[in-house]
C-alpha cells in the first residue's frame, strides 16, 4: 500500500529528528485484515441503514456505500464480530474467512 522502506532497511540517516513522525495517520498502510479468522457479511434485505455497525467498529473501518448500506473495509477488518452482535436487525453474520 505504501512506498516506504521496510523496517529492516531503514538506516540511521533515515530516522527523522527526535524520531518524530510527520505523516499523520500513516498507520493506515498496515493490513490488520490479515489478523482475521471470521468475516462479517451484510444481508441487505435486513439492513435498515442505521449505521450502528459503523459506530461500534473499534477499527473505524465500516463505511457507507452510495446506496446507504454499510460494509467493512476488509483491508482492516479484524473480524471481531462486534458489528454482528450489535446489529439491531441481525443483518450481519460472521462466517469463516475464505482461503
Amino acid at each position, binding site marked *: 500500500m505504501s512506498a516506504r522502506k521496510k*523496517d529492516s532497511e*531503514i538506516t*540511521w*540517516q*533515515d530516522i527523522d*529528528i*527526535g524520531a*518524530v*513522525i510527520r505523516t*499523520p495517520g500513516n498507520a493506515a498502510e498496515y493490513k490488520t485484515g490479515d489478523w482475521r479468522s471470521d468475516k462479517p457479511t451484510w444481508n441487505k434485505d435486513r439492513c435498515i441503514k442505521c449505521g450502528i455497525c459503523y459506530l461500534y467498529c473499534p477499527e473505524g473501518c465500516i463505511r457507507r456505500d452510495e446506496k446507504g448500506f454499510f460494509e467493512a473495509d476488509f483491508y482492516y477488518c479484524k473480524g471481531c464480530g462486534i458489528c454482528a452482535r450489535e446489529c439491531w436487525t441481525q443483518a450481519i453474520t460472521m462466517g469463516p474467512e475464505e482461503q
Partner: protein
Amino acid sequence: MAMVGMEGSLAMAEAARLANVDVVAAYPITPQTHIVERLAEMVANGELNASYIPVESEHSAMSACLGSSAAGARTFTATAGQGLELMHEVLYVASGLRLPIVMGVANRALSCPLSVWGDHSDVMAVRDTGWIQVFAENGQQAFDLTLCAFRIAEDPKVLFPVMVHIDGFHLSHVVEPLYLMEQEQVNSFLPPFSYPFPLDPDTPVTMGAFTVPILYSEARKSMETALRSTRVIINHIFADFARVSGRQYSAVEQYRSDDADTLLLTMGSYSQIAMDAVDQLRDRGEKVGLIRLRLWRPFPFDELRQAVENCQTLVVLDRCVSPAGPPGPVCSEVKAALYSQKKRPNVAGFIGGLGGRDLTPAEFVQMVERGRVIAAEGGEEIEMIGVRG
C-alpha cells in the same frame, strides 16, 4: 554598562528574563530556589511575560518543560541534587525528542547522608542523558552561559536541551560583581525561538512513538551522531557571544598552562581556587598551570588532548565519588580520552570538595605534589583530599 553585585542564581534568572523565556516550570530545592523565586517575582511584577507553572515535583517540572518546548515555547527550569535525580528518566526523553529546554543546575551532593551543599555528584549521575552541559565558574558565567544555552539549544542544527551547571552555594548564593547585558545586545545575539515541527493542529505530528529492536539502534545512532556534531556549532556560538559581550568562552580554558610540566584540571568554581594555587606555585618557580572544562558534554576530546599534549603530569580534581569504581568520573573520562594518544601525560586523580567542603589553595598545592608521585607510580587507590582519619 555598570557592574552589579548579584548572586549566581539571580544572574541566571536575569538571563532567562532577557531571553524573554515563554514558560518556566518551577519546583524549589536548595540551593537553586533563588532562581525560581526571582523568576516568580519577575512574572508577578510584569518584568517577565511568561507562563509560570509551580509544579508539584521535579519529575513534573521537566515533564511540563517537555510539553511546553514541544509546543514551540522557549522553556526554562532549574533544579539541584535530588531534584535532578528525581527527573532522571525525563532527561533522556528531552534529548531523545530533541527539545531545546534550558535548565540551570545548582550542583548539589546526593543523599545519603542528606547534604544540601555543593558537589558534582548530581552532575555525574546524568552524564549519559544526552544533554549539552556547560560549567560556570563564576557569577558572570552563570549569566553568560545561560544566555548562550538558549542560543545553543535552539540552533536549528543543534536542537538539544542544555544544562548550565553552577556550584551549589559557592556560585548560587555568593554575591559577585558581574555585567548584565542590555536587551538590544541580547536580541542581537539570541533570535526568537522557532521550533521546526511544534505540536500544532495545522501540521499534526506524532512525538514519542515506540521502536521495536530492529529500529531502536538506528534512532540512538541518529541522536548520538547529532549530539557529537554540536561541538563545532557551540564553538561558533561562543565566538558570536564574544562579539556581542567581549567575553570569549571555549570548550577547554587555560590558565598559565603554556609551558607547564604539571597541569591541574578542574570544573566549576573551584577552578578559581586552583588558580590561586597555580600562582603560588609559579611564584616559587614551578611550571604549573590549570585547565578547566567549560564544556562537559559533548566531551571536548580535541581541545583536551591539545591542552595537555606538552605536560608530563595531569592532576584531576573530582567533586564526586564513583564508589568502588575507577577513581573519579572526570578523571576516568580524561584518562579514556587520552588513552589512544601516543604522547600523553601521567594522570592522577583526587576526590575533594564533597558536600560543600571547601578546598584551600594549599590543598591544591598538595594535590600537585602528591599527584606527581601517584602519576609516576600508577595505582588505583582513590585519593581523597581533606578527609580526616
